C-alpha cells in the first residue's frame, strides 16, 4: 500500500506542482494518474521512489515513511518504466533486463538467465536478446522496458507515460499486454498518462489531477466517466464521455445478423441491387472490405479489388463491449458492423440501432434494480 498524506511539492521557482495530496493506493491495484501537462501527476509519481522530495507531507509504502529509507535501496524494490523505455543504449537487451538483479547483487549469469524468462513473459522473441536497444522498434523497446522493470520481481511498478511514444496500433497491443501481465502478477502499479482513454482502459482506480497540482477525483474509471466530481473532470474527460462509458457495458446480448459475403473470385457473379452492400471475405472468412454495385461493375471492368472495394470499419471481436459494437457499425461504409471470432473470421453483422436499444434495455434494468432497493427500504 502506498499512502500520500498532505503531500505538497513546490519548486524553487515558486510553482506548486502538487498541492496537499492525500491518496491511498491499495496493494495489487492498477492506479492511473491522469491529467493535462503540468498537473503534478508525474511529480507525484516520482515522489514515490524519491526521485523528487516533497516540500511537506509524508509518503509511506506499506506503512513505512519512505523519507527514512535509503533511496537506492528503496528504488531497487520499485520497478520503473518511462517513455521510450529509458534503456541503456550500450547494453544488449538481455543485459538491460538483468540490470536490477545485478544491482541487487545477483551474479551476472543468474541474472541473465532470469532475464530471458522475463523477456518471454512479456512476449518478446528471444532472438532479440543479444541486440542493442537501437536495433529494436519502439514497441519492442517498450516491452524490454517493462521486462526490465519486472526482472527483480518488485512489488511496485511506476510507469511514466510508457506508451505515449509508440503508434496507436502498437500502443493498443502494449496496453492489452499490460492488462494480461497485471492479471497474472497483481503488482501495485502507478501509471501516469495524459490520455483519458488509456486511463479508463487500464486503471482499477483513476486519479484525475487538475491545474495547480490538485487532485480532482479518485475513483473507479466508470464513475469518473459517469459522475465527474468537478467541472474540471467533466471537461477533461470530454464531451464524448457518454460514448466512452459504453466501453464498460458488455455487448453479449447484441443480436448478430447474417450478412451477405462473397469471396474475391465470385464477385463478378454477385447480384447486388442499388444501395446494397456485400462483404468481401478471404477463403478463410476474414473480412477484406465492403463492395456495392458500382464496385462490382468496376471488378467486371477488370479493376483491382483494392480499388473497387471500400475499406471496412472497425471489427467487433468476441466478448467486446457496447462501444466497440457501436463503433463497428458507425465506422462501416455499409452501416453494418462486422463481428469476427478469435480466428478473425466473420460471424455476423451488427446494427447500430440495436446497439442503442441494447443500451436502453441495460439502463432500464439498472433503474428497476435501483428502484427495487428503494421499495425494500419502505417496507
Amino acid at each position, binding site marked *: 500500500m502506498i499512502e500520500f498524506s498532505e503531500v505538497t511539492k513546490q519548486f524553487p521557482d515558486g510553482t506548486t506542482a502538487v498541492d496537499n495530496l492525500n491518496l491511498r493506493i491499495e496493494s495489487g491495484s492498477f492506479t492511473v494518474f491522469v491529467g493535462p501537462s503540468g498537473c503534478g501527476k508525474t511529480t507525484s509519481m516520482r515522489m514515490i521512489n524519491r526521485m523528487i522530495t516533497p516540500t511537506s507531507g509524508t509518503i509511506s509504502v506499506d506503512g513505512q515513511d519512505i523519507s527514512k529509507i535509503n533511496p537506492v535501496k528503496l528504488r531497487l524494490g520499485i520497478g520503473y518504466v518511462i517513455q521510450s523505455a529509458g534503456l*541503456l543504449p550500450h547494453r544488449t537487451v538481455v543485459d538491460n533486463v538483468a540490470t536490477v538483479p545485478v544491482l541487487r547483487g545477483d551474479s551476472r549469469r543468474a541474472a541473465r538467465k532470469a532475464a530471458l524468462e522475463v523477456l518471454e513473459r512479456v512476449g518478446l522473441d528471444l532472438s532479440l536478446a543479444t541486440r542493442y536497444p537501437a*536495433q529494436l*522498434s519502439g514497441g519492442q523497446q517498450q516491452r524490454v522496458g517493462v521486462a526490465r522493470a519486472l526482472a527483480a520481481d518488485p512489488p511496485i511498478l511506476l510507469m511514466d507515460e510508457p506508451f505515449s511514444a509508440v503508434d496507436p496500433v502498437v500502443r493498443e497491443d502494449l496496453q492489452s499486454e499490460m492488462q494480461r501481465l497485471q492479471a497474472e502478477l497483481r503488482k501495485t502499479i502507478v501509471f501516469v498518462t495524459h490520455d483519458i482513454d488509456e486511463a479508463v482502459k487500464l486503471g482499477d482506480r483513476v486519479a484525475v489531477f487538475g491545474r495547480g497540482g490538485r487532485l480532482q477525483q479518485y475513483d473507479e474509471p466508470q464513475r469518473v466517466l459517469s459522475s465527474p466530481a468537478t467541472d474540471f473532470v467533466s471537461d477533461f474527460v470530454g464531451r464524448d464521455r457518454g460514448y466512452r462509458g459504453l466501453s464498460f457495458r458488455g455487448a453479449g446480448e447484441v443480436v448478430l445478423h447474417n450478412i451477405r459475403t462473397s469471396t474475391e473470385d465470385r464477385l463478378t457473379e454477385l447480384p447486388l441491387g442499388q444501395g446494397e452492400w456485400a462483404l468481401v471475405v478471404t477463403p478463410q472468412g476474414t473480412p477484406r472490405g465492403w463492395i456495392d454495385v458500382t464496385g462490382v461493375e468496376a471488378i467486371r471492368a477488370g479493376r483491382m479489388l483494392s480499388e473497387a472495394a471500400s475499406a471496412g470499419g472497425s471489427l467487433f471481436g468476441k466478448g467486446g463491449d457496447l462501444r466497440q459494437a457501436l463503433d463497428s457499425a458507425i465506422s462501416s461504409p455499409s452501416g453494418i458492423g462486422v463481428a469476427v471470432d478469435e480466428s478473425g473470421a466473420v460471424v455476423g453483422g451488427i446494427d447500430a440501432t440495436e446497439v442503442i436499444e441494447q443500451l436502453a434495455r441495460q439502463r432500464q434494468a439498472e433503474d428497476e434494480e435501483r428502484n427495487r432497493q428503494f421499495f425494500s427500504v419502505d417496507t
Partner: protein
Amino acid sequence: MNYLIDNFPKVLDLTRTHLYLALVPLLIGLLISIPVGAAIRNISWLRRVTLTVASIAFTIPSLALFVMIPSLVGLKILDPLNVVIALTVYATALLVRAVPEALDSVPAAVIDSSTAMGFTSLRRAVTVELPLAIPVLVASIRVVAVTNISLVSVGSLIGIGGLGKLFTEGYQRDYPDEILAGIIAIVVLALAFDALLYIAGRLLTPWTRTTTKKVARA
C-alpha cells in the same frame, strides 16, 4: 628519403622516445581529467573556473613552459621529465574541458532511468555515463594525441625531443634530407596513432554501429 632509409634504426629509436614523450602525458592527462571533469561537471561555478584556468594554461607557449619547468620543479634542464610535465599540462588543459562535454552528451533520460532503477551515483558514473561518453571523448583524445606528437619535437630545442632531434641536427648540419625524414616520421606517427585511436574507439562502442541495420517491427 635516403636519410630515412640509411638511418632507419636511429629513426626507429627516436620514434620510440617520441612516442613515450607524447603518450605518457596523454595517459596522465586522462587519469587526472576523468575524475576531475566528472566532479566539476555539475557545479557550474567550479566548471567555469576550471575551464578558465585550463584555457590560460593552454595559451602558455610550449617553449616557455619547457624552459620554466626545470626551475619550478627543480629538475635538470636535460631531464626528459620536463617535456612529460609540460605536455601533461597541455593534455590536461584540453581534456578537462572535453570530459564534462563528453558526459553532457549522455542522454538525460538514460541517467534519470538509471538513477530510478537504483544505481548509486558512482556506479552510474563508471558503468553508464563513462561508456556512453566514449564516442565524444575519443574525438578529443585523438586531438590531444596528435597535438602531443607534434609538440614533442619542440622539446628538441632544449635537447629532448624524440624525432625533433632530426630537425635540430638537420638544421645545424644544413642537411635538408634529415629534416624531411623527421617530418615524414612525425606525420606517419601522428596519422597511425590517430587511426589506432579511431579503431579503438569503435571497438569499445559496438552499440553505436547498430542503428543502420534493419529494424524489426513490434
